[in-house]
């Protein structure tokens, strides 16, 4: 999707060094991958293409004289809803090119999300609050304790969900692995094969010999078994600490991975086994699955290939959560990730990102009921993904019954992303979703890995504060009673008690509305 004219670029000539001393500084010209800035005949910096700006704000950040302002221009046209600037641009794009819009990042605009839910603290009528500063709180979550020889012990109930090498740069993949190692959580290869350093980086080792840990306490890596099966071999399956069977994802459920040729460089092509520059469009379903029975057989042989040592995980897109989660649990997996409408993507058709799937807050309830009906809630671990922004969202998802959450888009933002939504073009100015060497060299995995680890640690602290002030000393104790819905819609969707009314809405009172 084009974002033509969505941003006003203002270059203050009085502040710009270049206008005083032409040739002295051209950082903005150098740094912008979209050619917004250029040099005129006098070697002065000029804004030569306003319309190309995607709003990533890297130029403003790097301008030594603070001479650049980037402001959204869309606001004046929002009042023309439903014919907003975005809609008009989209129609023009289709009319000019004959093809539909593609875009990265995720869903825009308002869908029901965690904001209309509040946390209930402890007072007299409930267990006393716990002291965050002086008392302990268990944050650990164990996956596959009874089924695997090498269960995963996450230090925090967090994961980095699958983001492929190809969609992300190698440097971003390694930053995620380092952050997972530094915080004791899990990262995921995604469906683009494994980057050579990823397995030992994720476990905390800088070198493949795995002698001394460079990053304590060491984390975990899940390798993905997906519909495109890029780079999958017996060695690949045994390179990780878990295997994730991808059924779907939040941003484009019902479609496969979508990697445009622009991002298929030599290395990406080598790992995926496809020609350089050709689109890698993963199948939307497994060619080698015809029935639910086949899914179960796959889980069984994946266990066999990995010697019954590591957990098998399954990732679902947002469709019919009760039925899907039930089927996944019956297939015999140790953990299930369910990804919501707000989930992110490197590239997806606009209409699919915007209009397909169920919001995350509406998925957790049915998913938990499915697990409870099978008697495996808390045994088969449930991870909620899709628009989780920090400890507060994590708390709410977990109080609704999830065992943990995933930070995908939030992790990208922690790496530097400003949400310009142009991931699919492969020119990410922060080097996150780019295969362009010039952009990639801007991302130092060690430094950005530390930033990511800081974000995870801070979010964990948030989760800990909230857990303890609501009277718990273990994140596994959180329940729906710790939450209230702020409006009728949210209470209707989630079955949570409505503030003031202090009960679930009437149709939820006898069972679960079904």
């Amino acid at each position, binding site marked *: 999707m084009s974002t033509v004219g969505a941003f006003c670029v203002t270059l203050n000539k009085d502040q710009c060094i270049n206008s005083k001393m032409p040739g002295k500084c051209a950082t903005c010209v150098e740094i912008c991958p979209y050619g917004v800035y250029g040099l005129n005949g006098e070697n002065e910096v000029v804004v030569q293409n306003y319309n190309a700006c995607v709003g990533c704000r890297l130029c403003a950040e790097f301008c030594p004289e603070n001479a650049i302002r980037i402001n959204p221009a869309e606001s004046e046209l929002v009042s023309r809803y439903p014919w907003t600037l975005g809609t008009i641009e989209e129609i023009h794009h289709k009319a000019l090119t004959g*093809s*539909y819009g*593609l875009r990265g990042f995720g869903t825009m605009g308002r869908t029901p999300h965690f904001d209309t839910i509040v946390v209930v603290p402890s007072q007299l009528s409930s267990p006393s609050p716990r002291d965050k500063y002086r008392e302990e709180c268990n944050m650990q979550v164990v996956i596959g304790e009874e089924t695997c020889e090498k269960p995963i012990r996450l230090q925090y109930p967090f994961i980095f969900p699958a983001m492929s090498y190809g969609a992300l740069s190698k440097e971003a993949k390694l930053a995620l692995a380092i952050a997972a190692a530094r915080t004791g959580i899990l990262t995921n290869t995604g469906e683009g094969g494994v980057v050579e350093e990823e397995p030992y980086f994720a476990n905390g080792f800088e070198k493949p010999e795995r002698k001394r840990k460079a990053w304590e306490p060491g984390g975990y890596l899940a390798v993905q078994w997906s519909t*495109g*099966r890029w780079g*999958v*071999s*017996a*060695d690949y*399956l*045994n390179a990780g600490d878990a295997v994730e069977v991808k059924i779907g994802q939040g941003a484009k459920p019902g479609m496969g991975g979508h990697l445009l*040729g622009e991002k298929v460089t030599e290395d990406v092509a080598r790992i995926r*086994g*496809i*020609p350089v*520059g*050709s*689109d890698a*469009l993963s*199948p939307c379903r497994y*060619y*080698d699955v*015809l029935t639910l029975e*086949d899914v179960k*057989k*796959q889980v*069984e*042989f994946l*266990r*066999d*290939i990995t010697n*019954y040592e590591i957990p098998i995980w399954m990732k679902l897109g947002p469709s019919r959560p009760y039925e899907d989660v039930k089927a996944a649990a019956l297939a015999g997996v140790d953990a299930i990730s369910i990804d919501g409408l707000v989930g992110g993507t490197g590239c997806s*058709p606009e209409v699919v990102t915007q209009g397909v799937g169920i919001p995350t807050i509406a998925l957790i309830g049915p998913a938990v009921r499915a697990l409870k009906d099978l008697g495996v809630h808390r045994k088969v671990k449930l991870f909620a993904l899709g628009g989780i922004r920090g400890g507060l969202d994590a708390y709410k998802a977990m109080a609704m019954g999830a065992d943990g959450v995933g930070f995908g888009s939030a992790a990208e933002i922690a790496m530097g992303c400003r949400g310009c939504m142009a991931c699919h073009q492969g020119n990410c100015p922060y080097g996150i979703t780019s295969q362009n060497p010039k952009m990639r060299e801007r991302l130092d995995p060690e430094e950005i890995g530390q930033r990511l680890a800081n974000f995870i640690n801070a979010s964990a602290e948030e989760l800990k504060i909230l857990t303890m002030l609501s009277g718990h000393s273990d994140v596994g104790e959180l329940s729906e009673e710790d939450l209230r819905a702020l409006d009728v819609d949210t209470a209707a969707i989630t079955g949570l008690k409505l503030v003031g009314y202090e009960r679930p809405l009437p149709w939820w009172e006898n069972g679960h509305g079904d």
Partner: protein
Amino acid sequence: MADAPSVLDAKGKDLRAASTELKSMLAKDSVIVRNSSHLHGLCGGLKSGTIVIEGEGGDYLGVVNAGAVIEMNGDAGKYVADNMTAGTVIVAGDAEYGAAQYCYGGTVVVKGNAGDFTATMNKGATILVGGCVGDEAATYMVAGDVIIVGDAGENLGNYLIRGNIYIQGDWASLGHNCAVVDMGAEDVQKLEALLKKHGLAADAKAFRKIAPLSDKPFYSH
């Protein structure tokens, strides 16, 4: 290696028990497996060894095979040799739906007929079918050779990106991005050697070759 191979009777055993036994036997010897049609994903991820499967096999036999030689003297179930990266799988009888999908390397030979979606997403393996194949054979192939002695169904080679299809018989229809190209001397030589090696009766000169029109096929975006 001892003269007589070990025999694994899989009757009444689950995948884990049969697989553990198979691996310990393979450490010493080649193995004959009997009564394994109820096991799905047997011989998964093996790096070496020679296994003969007697009678019918289960689904996903030899999945992610990484170097073992697996011979079946009966028919194969669904998805035989799925996602194989090295080694050889030979099926004396027919193979059901989805034989040799997602393979990165090695050789798969089905001496009888193979079902729909055979050799789909082949990424570098050599796949020979002595009989006919169903619909959608070699769909989205990105590398490797698929050799079909008999006929093919609808949409042969749909969205072929790289690699070659050689076929002696006829096809019901060709998929997108496919072109019938001339056979070169090296193609005939390669086919002759492969057909002879695997004992398939066919005339290498009678084959036609199908190659991709472009390695960047146009998808409607």
